[in-house]
């Protein structure tokens, strides 16, 4: 067993860390206060290749492996969660849905502009009344000649007002016997007539990111944009979560690290009772928990990434990593605020932002409660992952870096 990252992975992590340190950290507090996304973030991430980091070169990507994607997410979220969310949605949920389930024509049409950041990807599953229970969604897609006509509203959609292409899950067969049956996935171009969207303000965290709603009112989508087969929507939606959750797990790990680093720094500077607070055992205990959780979360997400590289199913491992890392990141951020005392309660220090940002990930992409049910299901033998008609391709360095 080799625990060392290869040179490529180490250099990718360092490059993204440099970008975050130099270009994100100096201004993120202002954007968070404004509750707006820095307009430079998406163009800059596109320019640096981050928006296509782990996609094959022939589809416009940078040809890095899935573990590198995790490392990128760790570094981005150590700066701010809003940046990692971009990758989760754009790459994890949108690009990978097309890479896994798309026809070659769909891949050649949609992946290059996404990978190069000319277009931004999104993912529309959650609805106002369908969150942890996605089979309850009511959005519809009705076949009409060579098109489908989509109606419905999606809620809590990241990059709602930024995305150009969205994976839209809708009910195509209202009469289907199974609740999860009769659903299909589509590639929706958001400049189609009838698509409207808006951002939600007043969020607890991820304020420098775009989260909102998307509405489709009699939107015509060509049948050629059906992703996978009709009726396969639920499976596609769930398989996408394996990738979205992976990026969330890796990002939350970065948040633990950021909480630890900020706490260590402050604990050495701040004095009480004549000594730096780092000398107090109860402060040390908090740092120790953060250090433990960081290492454990990192190992869990890297194992999931390794399984992706090998082309092995990773629903269980990814879910475990997501559950552990997000719970631990919330705890780490909360303890970081405690280490900072009264100063941690204001945005003079970044730890209050960490705490607000950490809270969302315990809910989205499968709440901690859902993750526990899944893990219990595996442990009890009630749940097993059956092979999918199409799996996410393994990472083959030669294949992924092939130009044509």
């Amino acid at each position, binding site marked *: 067993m080799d625990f060392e990252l290869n040179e490529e992975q180490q*250099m*990718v992590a360092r*490059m993204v860390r440099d*970008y975050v340190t130099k270009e994100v950290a100096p201004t993120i507090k202002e954007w968070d206060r404004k509750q707006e996304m820095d307009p430079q973030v998406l163009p800059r991430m596109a320019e640096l*290749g981050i928006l296509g980091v782990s996609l094959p070169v022939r589809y416009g990507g940078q*040809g*890095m492996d899935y573990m590198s994607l995790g490392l990128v997410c760790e570094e981005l979220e150590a700066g701010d969660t809003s940046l990692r969310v971009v990758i989760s949605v754009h790459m994890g949920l949108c690009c990978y849905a097309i890479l896994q389930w798309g026809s070659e024509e769909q891949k050649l049409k949609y992946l290059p502009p996404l990978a190069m950041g000319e277009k931004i990807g999104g993912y529309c599953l959650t609805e106002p009344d369908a969150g942890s229970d996605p089979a309850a969604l009511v959005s519809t897609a009705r076949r009409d000649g060579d098109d489908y006509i989509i109606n419905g509203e999606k809620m809590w959609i990241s990059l709602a007002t930024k995305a150009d292409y969205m994976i839209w899950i809708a009910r195509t067969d209202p009469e289907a016997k199974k609740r999860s049956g009769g659903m299909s996935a589509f590639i929706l171009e958001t400049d189609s007539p009838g698509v409207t969207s808006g951002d939600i303000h007043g969020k607890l965290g991820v304020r420098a990111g775009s989260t909102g709603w998307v509405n489709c009112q009699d939107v015509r989508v060509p049948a050629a944009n059906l992703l996978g087969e009709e009726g396969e929507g639920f499976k596609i939606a769930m398989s996408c979560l394996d990738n979205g959750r992976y990026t969330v797990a890796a990002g939350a790990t970065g948040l633990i690290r950021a909480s630890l680093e900020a706490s260590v720094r402050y604990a050495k500077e701040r004095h009480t009772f004549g000594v730096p607070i780092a000398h107090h055992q109860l402060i040390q205990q908090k740092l120790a928990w953060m250090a433990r959780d960081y290492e454990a979360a990192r190992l869990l997400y890297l194992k999931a990434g390794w399984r992706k590289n090998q082309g092995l199913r990773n629903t269980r491992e990814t879910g475990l990593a997501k559950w552990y890392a997000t719970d631990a990141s919330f705890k780490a951020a909360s303890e970081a605020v405690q280490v900072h005392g009264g100063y941690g309660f204001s945005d003079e220090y970044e730890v209050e932002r960490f705490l607000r940002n950490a809270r969302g990930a315990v809910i989205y992409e499968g709440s901690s409660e859902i993750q526990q049910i899944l893990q219990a299901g595996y442990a009890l033998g009630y749940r097993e992952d059956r092979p999918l008609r199409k799996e996410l391709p393994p990472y083959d360095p030669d294949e992924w*870096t092939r130009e044509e």
Partner: protein
Amino acid sequence: MKIVVCVKETIDTAASLSLQDGSVFWGDASLIINPWDEFAVETALLLTEEHGGEVVALSAGGGEKNEALKHALAMGCKEAIQLSAPEDMQEKTPVVPSMLAAAVQKIGDVDLVFFGRQSTDEETGLTPPQTARLLNWPALTQTAKVIAHDPQGQTIEVERLFENGRQQAKAALPAVVSVVKEICEPRYPSFMGIRKAARAIIPKWELSDLELSSTVDSAWRSLRLDVPASRTKKVEMISGESAADIAGTLVKRLLEEKVL
């Protein structure tokens, strides 16, 4: 046109250093490209992007992986070469200029040799002028701007930055140039560059490849390393009858401490 950039592998600037048995110890801190050298690489790449040619990165010493050379390749250098000498010789800084100068001559047809102004570990800033002396080329140190580079006319004109001002200087090529951080903003390594760098097998030139003897001597040598005395901080509360009194005392204290 060929440009050589000399880069050095140094300890991460965020690392905590200590002195153990007369040697600097940095624990398991990572090694990085000397931050000043990134500016040199960027300047060289910009010149070749403008005038054509290629950039070769050279590094004397460093570990097996040599992070400095890998980083330079990932930024866009076409080639990287590691220069190797026995460890006890590497500790003598002047061996490095001899190796770099010999390597530049071995590469041949080099117009410019770029350096960062100094390395963040030893901070001597001596390697660029020493290399220039050995090559018998002009040395343009402290360069903050390339005003004009004329590969055909074989000249370079630069602006040099000093504490008290700026100086414009022109030199015939080939020349050695060391740069300060005001010269440019280094690019990040590209992912394509990272792939290339990670897979690159970097050739290693030994002393014999450079036709240098193992007795190459130093113009100077390091005798001892000391940890600088730690700074002490104290807080002094100034009191007085009125704001004017307090301000007066404050000004007096600042003058005494030579702050004003």
